[in-house]
């Protein structure tokens, strides 16, 4: 009977050790994930219902010291004024384009192209008939422009290739504040969708000379973001930060007139919508007419469409407002008004 040949044993032993070592490593890695257990919290509701599975929400909050939707709601861009020889007012704004990373949802960062470091860009506001001068500096790393909606001469349109402002370049736009209404400005550089989507847009408001009735005024830009560049929005919001006004409700008083300057700057999607709970509002499309078109609680806006909403809340409490295109609401376009009782708030 021939003896067992041991000379080849080391080969088999080393082979086996590699095999089982590999199996062990793989198992260890794969099982590591299933070891850590999380105990889910419960959220008690009516009759002992656990509400925790129903929390359509994001986790965490954004750092609002860098980008604050609450400030955007009420702030306009400061301007300087001069009186022209013919007695008219010349209003001067300074706007610059700059790249800035912004937090569009808790923990989600987007490399935005901005006007004055914010998205939406600052709200420019003037009175009908004023002469407007916008000193635009491009501090970004590619050509940009400003294109205003409203009456102006061809050389002030900011839309043609030869009107692109190069990096470090400056251009001064001049035109009359005309017509009355809620308008827009945005970058018209190519590729157009990307320049607008990346954050280069803002409100341009022309007030009537006699003014509008006193009200609590709020600026709301419905926008969205496509952070993975698949030409579909993953995140929707009003004033950039998803669910911001859910986490930080907007305080208003019972029965006070609230005027919302509402615009839709969404790219990639055809329409957007705006719906307020438990009240109805007057809607003035583009803010150009004195008579409201609708008395409603839901309004639809296409791309670049905008209008003025005038609303009163008859009851105190928390009331939702959101896109009634509900998939947008579920992806961040949802907020709350907190209506303070009339007596307590006086």
């Amino acid at each position: 009977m021939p003896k067992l040949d041991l000379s080849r044993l080391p080969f088999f032993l080393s082979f086996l050790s590699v095999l089982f070592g590999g199996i062990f490593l793989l198992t260890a890695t794969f099982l590591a994930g299933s070891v850590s257990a999380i105990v889910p919290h419960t959220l008690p509701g009516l009759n002992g219902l656990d509400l925790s599975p129903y929390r359509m929400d994001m986790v965490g909050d954004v750092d609002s010291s860098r980008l604050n939707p609450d400030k955007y709601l009420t702030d306009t861009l400061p301007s300087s004024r001069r009186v022209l020889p013919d007695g008219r007012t010349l209003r001067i704004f300074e706007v610059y384009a700059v790249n800035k990373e912004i937090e569009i949802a808790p923990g989600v960062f987007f490399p935005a192209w901005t006007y004055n470091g914010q998205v939406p860009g600052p709200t420019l506001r003037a009175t009908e008939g004023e002469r407007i001068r916008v000193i635009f500096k491009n501090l970004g790393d590619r050509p940009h422009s400003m294109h205003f909606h409203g009456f102006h001469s061809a050389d002030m349109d900011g839309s043609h290739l030869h009107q692109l402002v190069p990096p470090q370049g400056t251009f001064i736009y001049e035109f009359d504040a005309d017509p009355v209404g809620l308008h827009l400005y945005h970058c018209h550089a190519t590729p157009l969708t990307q320049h607008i989507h990346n954050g280069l847009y803002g409100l341009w408001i022309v007030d009537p000379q006699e003014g509008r009735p006193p009200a609590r005024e709020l600026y709301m830009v419905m926008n969205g973001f496509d952070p993975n560049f698949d030409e579909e929005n993953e995140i929707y919001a009003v004033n950039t930060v998803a669910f911001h006004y859910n986490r930080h409700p907007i305080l208003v008083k019972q029965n006070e007139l609230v005027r919302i300057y509402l615009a839709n700057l969404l790219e990639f999607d055809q329409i957007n919508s705006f719906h307020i709970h438990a009240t109805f509002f007057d809607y003035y499309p583009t803010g150009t007419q004195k008579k409201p078109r609708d008395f409603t609680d839901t309004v639809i806006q296409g791309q670049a469409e905008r209008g003025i909403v005038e609303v009163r809340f008859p009851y105190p409490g928390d009331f939702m407002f959101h896109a009634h295109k509900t998939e947008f609401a579920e992806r961040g376009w949802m907020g709350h008004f907190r209506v303070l009782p009339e007596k307590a708030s006086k």
Partner: protein
Amino acid sequence: MDKEKNSSLTTQLFFALIPLILLAGVIYVLLSGGPTKIFQTDIPPIEKLHVLRHTLEKDTILLDCINSGPDAVTIAQVMVRGAFWYHEISPKRTLNPLETARVLIPYPWNPGEPVGIVLLTSTGLTFDYEIEVASLTPKPSMVAFGRFAMIGVYVGLIPVALGICWFPFLRRLGKRGVGFFLYLTVGLLAFLVFDAVTEGLKIAENMPSNFHGPALLALGLAGAYLVLIGIETRIQEKRGGLKGGILLAWLIALGIGLHNLGEGLAIGSAYVIGELTLGAMLVIGFTIHNATEGIAIVVPLLKEQPKLPSLIGLGLLAGGPTILGCWIGAFTYSQAWSLLFLGIGAGAILQVIFIIMGRQTLSETLSLINIFAMIVGYFVMYGTSLLVGAS
């Protein structure tokens, strides 16, 4: 000179360490900056997230994820069916390469519906995961163990046993009949090898790329083949030649057993995550398909006098591992295991094929009748596999 001889071991060790020391030096230089700047670009970090497995409990979705890319990934938010949803992540949101995390999403999922989940990272990249059909994940319990054992029995053990029951019939065939069935077996086994490799590559496709699934499959295949060749050679040397068909039958049973272990793993894990609904038709399909495996085992024994216990033993070795595979597949994550065992099974079967075909000279082996038998065997397997399209 003598000194050198005395310290030969130390010197040898020193020379072995030189490349390692130099490698450590190179890594140190790279990590301490300097030359890495050459490789730095404006390209953002490459993020890769892979969901290894999901678990569905009542009103809760659990995902086990691994960072399979070269850079850290932070899971910022989670979307379920297009809506952002509250969730918790343990142990932490930021995963370094090869780190794992468990995402817990309290969500009112409905049985029978697909659930699409999107993990949104801090840089805005999205990683999609689809639960094809939501169903409660069985927890390891006596009942569940019993149920998966039954699946294994129906899919693995019973069919193989049924196949072995052809033994008396096959014995009554003449010498030519036996030869025909031996090469029919080669055809059956060849199908199993091909099937294991294609199924393995399918599994490999769904694995994180840095686990190199195809390489794992090849490791199992080549490893099993070489080890079995080694064992067989040793036994031959010891016994002075392969004695009859008994050893061959055991080797075939071992190969099929390993194959069925891999198959059980795949069935168990697919069943658990709802990708496979084991309807009556599918079980019947598996039964018919795997019955042909039983034939393969007993064909080498036709000229022997095997006792009943050894026939039972062969059946258990070939069919039993399906039960084990179902358990492992159902209760632990098993893609890699499945792949490895499919590879090992394929290697073992391949070795058996070579033994059978190496018994005669090439011209004898490749006679027209043998080739015909092999094609018929392959086709029988192919035909019965049509009944188990989902596996």
